[in-house]
């Protein structure tokens, strides 16, 4: 449970981080909260030779309104997002989902940009960002560019970022008081989701739906969204939740059960977002 030897570089600006990435090449990894990277380094599943620590870059930590969007700095901690009054008012799905990530320690250390860059198919916040149709802003040697989140998650721990780039910002639409829901299904409250479904009514009148842990990456439930756009009922649309998914079978759930959960959680999330039922949080289950 001790990582392989590595060099540690602490930077205080994005430019320094980009320069350090350029200097150390593909053996370097960005360290922010460390709650995804460090465990796999301790298990020696990841052996980066250089860690570039951006957790102390002040310009990357913010939540603010910019036009029709909310802009969130990449090193914003889950806890900061959870407690952000701007986020609560403008895009309440995100602070709620932030409050459901891991345990208090994870939420106080983990960062939004980190969980997006890590690209774990079972991650909560990337699922919410996908449902929201967020934009990922990355910065590299050739400057900044924006990538639609639907094109960002490519595969298992694989993103659309080029070598030398890091996530600097997430931009999401201001959904305000429109309906939203996050149905997270876990063994224990602090666990990764076995499956999760996010649903949110978007400013353009559409409904965004995304699923966690139903394939190698977090997935947009496009068939569900299309069915809703065609005026299908929530029940009918939710039945399509497994289209385009490739759920794995592991000790927590087999593919058949995951598919069942995807349909069930999608239906529940859509109903909660539509104001038809209450969210099935752990508390309401216990009541």
């Amino acid at each position: 449970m001790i990582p392989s030897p590595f060099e540690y570089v602490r930077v205080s600006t994005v430019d320094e981080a980009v320069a350090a990435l350029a200097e150390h090449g593909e053996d370097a990894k960005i360290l922010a909260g460390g709650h995804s990277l460090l465990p796999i380094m301790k298990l020696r599943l990841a052996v980066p030779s250089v860690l570039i620590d951006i957790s102390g870059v002040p310009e990357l930590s913010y939540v603010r309104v910019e036009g029709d969007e909310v802009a969130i700095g990449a090193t914003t901690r889950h806890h900061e997002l959870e407690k952000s009054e701007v986020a609560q008012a403008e895009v309440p799905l995100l602070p709620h989902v932030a409050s459901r990530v891991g345990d208090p320690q994870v939420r106080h250390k983990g960062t939004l940009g980190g969980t997006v860059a890590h690209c774990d198919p079972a991650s909560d916040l990337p699922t919410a960002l996908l449902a929201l149709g967020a934009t990922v802003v990355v910065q590299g040697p050739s400057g900044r560019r924006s990538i639609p989140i639907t094109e960002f998650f490519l595969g298992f721990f694989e993103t659309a970022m080029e070598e030398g780039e890091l996530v600097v910002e997430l931009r999401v639409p201001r959904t305000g008081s429109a309906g939203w829901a996050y149905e997270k299904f876990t063994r224990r409250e602090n666990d990764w989701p076995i499956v999760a479904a996010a649903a949110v009514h978007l400013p353009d009148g559409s409904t965004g739906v995304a699923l966690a842990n139903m394939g190698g990456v977090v997935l947009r439930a496009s068939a569900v969204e299309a069915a809703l756009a065609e005026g299908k009922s929530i029940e009918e649309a939710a039945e399509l939740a497994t289209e385009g998914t490739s759920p794995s079978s592991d000790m927590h759930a087999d593919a058949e059960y995951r598919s069942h959960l995807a349909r069930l959680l999608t239906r529940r999330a859509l109903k909660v977002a539509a104001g038809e039922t209450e969210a099935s949080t752990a508390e309401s289950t216990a009541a």
Partner: protein
Amino acid sequence: MSILGTRVVRTEDPLFLTRGAVYTDDLTDERLTGALHATFVRSDVAHGTVTSVDASAAREAPGVVAVYTAEDLGDLQPVPPPLPFLDAGFSRPWLVPVGGRVHFVGDLVAVVLTEERYQGEDAAEQVVVDIDPLPAVVTTKAAATDEVVLFPEVGTNKVAAFGEPAPEDFFADCEVVVRREIVNQRVAAAPLETRAASAAWGEDGRVTIWCTNQGAQQAKGQIAGWLGLDPALVHLITPDVGGGFGAKIGADQEYAFVAWLAQQVGRPVRWSESRSENMTGMLQGRAQDQVVTIGGSRDGKVTAYSLEVTQDCGAYPRIGTVLPTLTMLMAAAVYDIPKVHAQATCYATNGTSIGAYRGAGRPEATAAVERAMDLFAAEIGMDPAEVRRINFIPTFTEPVQTASGATYDSGDYEAALDRVLEAAGYAELRAEQARRRERGDVRQLGIGVSAYVEITGADSGHGTSENAELEVHPDGTATVLTGTSPHGQGHATTWAMLASEQLGIPVEKITVLHGDTDRIPDGGGTMGSRSLQQGGAAVHQAAVELVEVARKRAAELLEANPDDLEVDLANAGLSVKGTPGVGVTWAQLAADEQLIVQTTFTANAPTFPFGAHVAVVMTDVESGKAVVTRLVTVDDAGTIINPLLAEGQRHGGIAQGVGQALLEEILYDEDGNPQTSTFADYPFVSATELPSFELVEMATPTPMNPLGAKGIGEAGTIGSTPAVQSAVVDSVAHLGVRHVDMPATSMRVWRAIREAQNSGAQKGSTN
């Protein structure tokens, strides 16, 4: 007023909760200055033949002082199995040699000694081990076929067998017979403090070993035996211990290895394992496949019960091999069943070795018979609480012999059930359940009832005896030495209370010491819920004897008749009856001459605490997820010395039992690779999954010791596991489900509902 029975706050907690206790890995003893760090290289194959071990690169790695492979072990002999009746062919090598077989993921192949700990992990990666895999034996069913034999020199995977098959006509006179296969799954002890050991040899030729364990004296004996050392040369010290749950009983081979390595290199050596290493290397628990058959009449009377156990012993059979005999002994539990049959067969598999785990054989008995009672109740359409009531052993105050051969000391099982049902509001719960079923709610209520009796203070290698030494010092303080071995239980508080009660010396002036074999050469450790009823009783006896010693001395001093003197609790001494405050204090007596007593207390026999639990769950029938909403328990452990600590034992036990019922299971893939070797994968229960417990009081004293105390450490686990499992089954019983194996995960429950409904639909279509 006596201090006994009061809620004295744990004296050890300020340290534990602030700067922390000193665990083995925290030691800064000067004898460990310059210690090397041991890192074990373990097999990552469950079953196979080692074809080569190349340590040459590792020997050149930074910080490496030595690398040992099987070639470097000299005349160190393999460790024989710990039970005399086991075939010596099951012996475990210190390091598996080239040409030898590895038997589980975690088997030892090499060990690296480095200056710094981190260097050990780097160097261990450079030891190249080639293993030619053999088919792995992962289940007892596969083991029983002997198609793959783990130890060719033994010739079979069968390790032991206890009991005989039931006669063919055993259930012939029963109106109703129900039979069911039940899994009591393999679980991890997972103490927060993983295994650790340090060793240093002195110039006097003696070795001091610090290691985390549940009984220093037993661990010392084992280590000396394995290394062929004169026990007099071994000084074993148990620092603070962060949990054991049975898996730290005795020593592990790694502990002895550390001592041997220290001798070889002539420097102290330390070892502390990682969590992943712990999850494959430390003894695990339960791992029984059971078949229950229960028969009786439609009016609810059970007349015959059979329990067949198949025990998975893991790779190298250890104490887990004999735990099924406790399961057999307690098979009929709280029930008066005319015919009881129990037998067990034990097999070696390519898994981690099985040992004691909170309850150790008794929870398996209770889980089986409680499931059987529920199945029987469902079959005859009777309320499960009522079926239990009909079949209880009637209230008794004199020892009673059971059909399985146990002698229960005292019990009132029906009263325990009555109390818990009343506290739970059983009738109203059933009414609420009926309403939810009527409405077809998504969230359905389940109620699980369990009744249990267990054996505590049984002979676990030290008879039913424990010793204590009590000394009062001239400054008025006192020291208690005990052969028990607290690892979270709070003996420092309770043992001080027992001494204080007799002497009047305040608890904060009494120090309790344990776990040092030079100071306390004899002791039975802490296991099997024995500590208070034997170790605590010994402290009580020591205090009573010390009073008598002091009375004689005081009589001379005060020129009084010893019979006229009484303990003056308020002034911590003795005075002439009726004149408190004018006698002599313990401190004064100790100043004149050492005031010390050593004594051994022997209990008449083991004790049998009992109780009843009600668990309430809310199950989402669409997803299958069950959430525990209430746990109401009666855990009668006889006289309670400190209710605060007893409740803590119940809390922990209940929680751990819920963990087994709902969450925990050690899993292997078909090649024997562990699937649950981190805390991300292995879900021990946490506060977020538990309601506040509703503890109901009941205390039936035992005649087996002067305190009237029975064991409390394991009871909660024994009662809560079947109660929660039953509650989950009950929550979906109206959908046709009769049984869900543990852990009752949401997927299992969902699938059970679906299968029940499919088979119900088929029945409907054929009728």
